[in-house]
């Protein structure tokens, strides 16, 4: 019996739709199974950086994987524009991490040093700059900014437009998108996967799990694992302003639309409806110290979102040894790695196996190796 679909992608967030688009480009018949409008959805709450600096401390190959996606991003966004007419506003002017005390700057330098000292690390091109050097590139910084790190590979994108663009692109390529189809169970029978949802069963020859933190629940159904450690982040966003900064900062960026996003908090909570005012206040206070001209700007919204986070923070790409045709595509950085997911991971899934030379370090088996060690 022939399954309805070649691949069922579980998850309609950025990771899921980027993978689905890549699969559709390979000629696969694809269905995306998504949750409803109120789903816990990192793709609507992320910070939209295409970010390189500081990625890979603890797993050197992650740095290379990140840079590879960052390098592929320009071509990826061009392809999307050709297909949809939508410009996701990818820019790669280089980005900053700003420090508000000598202590912060020292800690920053330390992290970069440890990162660079890892065996097998690729060249990051990240450097530490003092106040005056930063001010040349970000003229509106406040006096309290003692310095920061700069990486020319860093960039950003309009991630909500990316989200919309990918949905538009899969729609145009005939991918079936089914919202309110939370997957409750997956079994492999008669050479195909059967996915149980509230609205009936979906059958597919392969399954790609791209359900974020829910991969923890889904992966064991197909002989895989995805140990997750979700955490909550909060973001403050301002009204639209005239352009005043040419480089994104890891905690503060001006979007192409003019709004300023301020963020990067971390709390151990999985309640996406909660918002801690004191956390927003800290973000605001630091933002005003970094860029004093923002003091009188209006905040129009704050929100919290649950980060998709594996237990060690690095991606998981796996294929099931017991259920051939089942894959996990699971990571925190769904924006930065979107190009890799669409252009590298999806073709591998279409072919039916992952290329070990590229993704072996990202197997979830690493969690057992560490335990044994």
């Amino acid at each position, binding site marked *: 019996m022939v399954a309805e679909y070649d691949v069922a992608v579980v998850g309609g967030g950025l990771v899921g739709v980027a993978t689905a688009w890549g699969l559709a480009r390979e000629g696969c018949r694809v269905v995306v199974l998504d949750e409803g409008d109120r789903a816990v959805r990192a793709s609507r709450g992320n910070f939209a950086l295409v970010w390189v600096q500081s990625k890979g401390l603890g797993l050197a190959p992650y740095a290379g994987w990140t840079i590879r996606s960052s390098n592929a991003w320009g071509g990826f966004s061009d392809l999307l524009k050709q297909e949809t007419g939508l410009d996701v506003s990818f820019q790669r002017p280089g980005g900053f991490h700003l420090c508000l005390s000598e202590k912060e700057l020292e800690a920053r330098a330390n992290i970069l040093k440890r990162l660079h000292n890892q065996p097998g690390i690729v060249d990051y091109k990240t450097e530490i700059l003092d106040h005056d050097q930063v001010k040349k590139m970000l003229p509106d910084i406040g006096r309290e900014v003692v310095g920061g790190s700069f990486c020319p590979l860093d960039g950003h994108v309009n991630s909500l437009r990316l989200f919309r663009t990918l949905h538009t692109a899969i729609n145009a390529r005939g991918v079936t998108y089914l919202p309110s189809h939370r997957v409750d169970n997956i079994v492999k029978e008669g050479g195909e996967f059967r996915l149980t949802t509230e609205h009936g069963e979906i059958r597919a020859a392969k399954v790609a799990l791209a359900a974020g933190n829910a991969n923890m629940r889904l992966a064991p159904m197909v002989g895989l694992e995805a140990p997750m450690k979700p955490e909550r982040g909060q973001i403050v966003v301002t*009204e*639209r*302003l*005239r352009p*005043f900064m040419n480089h994104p900062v890891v905690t503060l960026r001006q979007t192409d639309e003019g709004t300023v996003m301020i963020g990067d908090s971390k709390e151990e909570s999985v309640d996406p409806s909660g918002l801690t005012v004191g956390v927003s206040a800290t973000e605001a206070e630091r933002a005003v110290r970094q*860029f004093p001209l*923002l003091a*009188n*700007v209006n905040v129009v919204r704050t929100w919290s979102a649950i980060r998709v986070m594996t237990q060690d923070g690095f991606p998981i790409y796996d294929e099931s040894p017991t259920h051939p045709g089942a894959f996990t595509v699971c990571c925190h950085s769904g924006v930065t790695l979107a190009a890799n997911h669409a252009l590298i991971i999806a073709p591998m899934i279409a072919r039916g196996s992952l290329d070990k030379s590229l993704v072996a370090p990202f197997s979830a088996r690493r969690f057992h190796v560490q335990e044994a060690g």
Partner: protein
Amino acid sequence: MFKRLADAGSAVAITVDGKPVAARAGDTVAAALIAAGIDHCRTTPVTGAPRAPYCLMGVCFECLVTVDGVGSRQGCLVPVREGMKVETQLGRREAGR
């Protein structure tokens, strides 16, 4: 568009884009603008379309203006004050003002 009933309050002098406007005690900035017959108070940050006060009750945010140097104030909620400087806001607000 609007005229004042004869028994409106005492005069308050404000300026709108540098030009004197005769407001009255009890006016909000938005009310003073429509009483003065000013066509629009801002242009949108998206397409630059002109906009004017619409709901006058704090809901629509169409009457955003710069008041005494501070941008994006809701004109319908700010009472006028003698000497107040009101500026129409064109497109996106400038950070720092």
